[in-house]
């Protein structure tokens, strides 16, 4: 420690060993006044730590969503392309041969057996349902009802807000 400010800081934080502390206090013009100030600082520090505890951050769930969206934008799209390392009987060559054969069979049979969907939704006898909906804002309400046609559903949010026409959405 090169100067008074550094030694004082260490002294205040109790970071000096006994010899260093005695030497420092001996060099103070008014040790009692310095000790009183140290006591004041301890009081203030206690109050600071007690007061400035983390308050819940605003828009907290939005932060999570934004972080995860950023992570997903960055990730390479290899999750569905994990390689299975063959063991035992399945050497690389046999695995490649077996894989090519399976692909050919699957392609041929799926063409015959699996129905093709176009862009339009296919009909189903099952309906969509809103199981629950809630808002933490007492001024907002959310309720659900069946959409015309009987299969779809509507989640009706009251007072979801207003965006001026000249404000960009994206």
């Amino acid at each position: 420690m090169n100067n008074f400010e550094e030694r004082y800081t260490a002294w205040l934080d109790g970071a000096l060993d006994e010899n260093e502390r005695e030497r420092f206090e001996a060099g103070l013009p008014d040790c009692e006044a310095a000790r009183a100030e140290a006591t004041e600082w301890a009081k203030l520090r206690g109050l600071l730590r007690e007061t400035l505890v983390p308050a819940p951050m605003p828009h907290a769930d939005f932060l999570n969503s934004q972080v995860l969206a950023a992570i997903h934008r960055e990730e390479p799209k290899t999750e569905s392309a994990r390689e299975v390392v063959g063991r035992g009987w399945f050497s690389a060559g046999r695995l490649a041969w077996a894989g090519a054969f399976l692909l050919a069979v699957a392609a041929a049979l799926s063409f015959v057996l699996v129905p093709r969907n176009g862009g339009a939704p296919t009909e189903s006898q099952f309906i969509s349902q809103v199981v629950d909906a809630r808002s933490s804002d007492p001024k907002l309400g959310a309720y659900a009802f069946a959409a015309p046609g009987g299969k779809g559903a509507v989640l009706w949010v009251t007072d979801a807000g207003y965006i001026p026409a000249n404000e960009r959405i994206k």
Partner: protein
Amino acid sequence: MDSGELANEADLLARSRTGETTAFDQLITLHRDRVYMVAYHILRNHEEALDVAQDTFVRAWRSLARFDGTSSLRSWLTRIATNASIDVVRRRQSHPQTEFDAVPGMAIDAASRTTPSQPAKPSESLDRAEIRTRFEQALGTLSDDHRAVIVLKEIEDLSYQEIADTVGCSLGTVMSRLFYARKKLQDQLRDLYEQL
């Protein structure tokens, strides 16, 4: 954190390292308030603090493999948040802003760096919100460098060396800044703790 919470955090961390974003989502929830608070106390700007908080967790995700557990996850995140906040401060210094977006209800006057705060009347009792406001205002009167070391030492309880490593200066500089920052806070808040 108690041992149960630490065990839960360790499990979430291990799962996050395998790429499980739902586990990382929970880690964000556990630490976001503190990360935001560190950023806010350094930056004194709500929007910038939110951006830094977001940036902190994205950086943490990218670096999970490099987190070796020698410090706590909280300390590690604090360091990332502090570095990100200091980057913002440095950008501000090279491109000074003319306006300062403060949290509504907490107007911070740039001139307050040299103007002493109004002492509270001795007869007034101070509630928690008032005390908090006084602290926030007093921290606002410090320079960015001084405020950063105070936040890291007094709120995050980092060692001098950890602070030096985080802000990128020498040990002696950290201790000198603490000296002057503490003196200024004591002057600003003397009436406050004298009432207690």
